[in-house]
């Protein structure tokens, strides 16, 4: 028997690097097919020497394909193992190769979308944005470096895993590991979302609910302090003002309570939470996100004009 043709680590790395461009020719007909064949080209060149086999392999990988782009890597890994077997004379049907691709892309997208698009990217994005809001360059850098380290690490190791596991990976899909990862990611995601709603959604109702006149002596007597400062005792006036403020005296003779103050003493962030639920409900009713966004701007402008927000 002739010597076995095997894909070297370099070949596999080159496939992995090319799979970065998986979505480049994303189209409405066969979606990621162009990118898939582009990624497989180094392997096809290595494995098949005569033109007929090459043509067949290229056509095989120009079939419909679509998944979350990072979880395409384990699928490519399995495909590499299958193609290698085939090139070495094993009977691997076209249907088997296509079956692995189609069979895996659905469940894996079900893991990849929530894990990457709805957990890793939002969390890193929020982390980076939190720093960026104060103009800190570390925010964008942190986001970019961490995201890409996780992404490329994931792509390379899962592709290698798929390659070594070969067809076994398809059996593992029904096992517990992937389900656990998905569940753990959604727990973390929900927790972080809850805290982000609290922190970043801002609604402030400005109408004044009540104006209470504070009792004599419970607020800082600025006039007396001003006189003291005028008479040259500026330091003492400052000292007294700060001491009085720290002792919990009110700043003004009257104290104003806005609607928002009342809501905050009930549950801080209640309105943002309710707004989020409203948006979820509207999205479920198939209202387009863009329509919701634009109407929120309109609500903001009108609310501001009538003095509510």
């Amino acid at each position, binding site marked *: 028997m002739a010597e076995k043709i095997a894909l070297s680590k370099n070949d596999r790395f080159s496939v992995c690097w090319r799979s970065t461009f998986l979505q480049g020719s994303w189209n*409405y007909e066969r979606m990621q097919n162009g990118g898939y064949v582009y990624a497989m080209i180094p392997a096809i060149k290595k494995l098949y020497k005569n033109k007929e086999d090459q043509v067949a392999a290229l056509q095989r990988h120009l079939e419909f394909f679509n998944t979350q782009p990072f979880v395409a890597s384990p699928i490519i890994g399995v495909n590499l193992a299958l193609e290698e077997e085939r090139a070495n004379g094993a009977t691997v049907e076209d249907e088997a190769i296509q079956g692995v691709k189609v069979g895996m892309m659905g469940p894996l997208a079900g893991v990849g979308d929530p894990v990457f698009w709805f957990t890793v990217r939002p969390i890193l994005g929020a982390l980076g944005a939190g720093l960026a809001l104060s103009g800190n360059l570390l925010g964008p850098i942190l986001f970019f470096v961490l995201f890409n380290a996780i992404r490329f690490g994931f792509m390379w190791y899962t592709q290698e895993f798929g390659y070594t596991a070969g067809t076994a990976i398809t059996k593992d899909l029904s096992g517990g590991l992937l389900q656990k990862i998905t569940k753990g990611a959604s727990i973390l995601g929900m927790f972080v979302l809850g805290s982000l709603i609290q*922190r970043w959604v801002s609604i402030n109702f400005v109408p004044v609910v009540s104006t209470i006149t504070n009792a004599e002596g419970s607020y800082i007597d600025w006039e007396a302090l001003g006189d003291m400062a005028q008479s040259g005792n500026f330091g003492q006036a400052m000292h007294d003002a700060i001491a009085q403020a720290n002792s919990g005296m009110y700043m003004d003779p009257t104290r104003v309570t806005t609607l928002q103050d009342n809501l905050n003493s009930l549950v801080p*962030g209640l309105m943002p939470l309710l707004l989020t639920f409203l948006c979820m409900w509207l999205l479920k009713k198939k209202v387009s996100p863009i329509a919701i966004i634009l109407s*929120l*701007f309109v609500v903001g402008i009108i609310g*501001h004009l009538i003095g509510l927000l």
Partner: protein
Amino acid sequence: MNGLSIILVIIVAFFAGMEGILDEWQFHQPIVACTLIGLVTGNLEAGIILGGTLQLMAMGWANIGAAVAPDAALASVASAIILVKGGQGVAGVSTAIAVAIPLAVAGLFLTMICRTLAVGFVHAMDTAAKNAEFGKIEALQIGAICMQGLRIAIPAAAMCFVPAEAVSAALNSMPAWLTDGMSIGGGMVVAVGYAMVINMMANKEVWPFLFIGFAVAAISDLTLIALGILGVSMAFIYLNLAEQGGSGGSGGSGDPLGDILNDY
């Protein structure tokens, strides 16, 4: 903007456009794209702040399956250019954001056009595959990516050549009630992104964690990192407990053999 800045802005825009479809390096994410445009035009701080603010709004914008999300690439690139040309620095961030949303919609249509044009590219690949022309397939793939890059680079270039006076005049002519109202709206718009993500992830099992996060975040001493640690720890605790207590039940682990052994 001088000539060099314009060229660099167009290059950044090209990368953002490529990434808008590839979704790998994340050059199209506002926090990266706005920062880069700020950097090459000498408005680094304003760019970072704009990027951070937009990033929070774009949180749930993701391409799922064949669905196309609002276009973060055009929104970030164009609003950053407007911010730079407006010349108001950090103060111009809220007006730039108000412009970003309609741009995200415009970008969405451009993406859909490009994704339709890409059908032609893969048909050409089919033809090339018949003759095993590897180089041609590769060139077509790269060509398709460049088309996506130009999708953002061309509008960006056009915006660079609109005179700065026109941009700042348009921005200054916006009345205060409009800009204030817009920034109030901007504070609420973030909720839409969160709602999209929650709709995707929520099930009976994980709902309580949203409320725990909501309640805990009211403690303003906790940083986002501390919150992250809490979340990760809870996920691990939950998974371990579910494994210990839940596997004796009616086959919750999805592993028939394991269940038989456990029941034994």
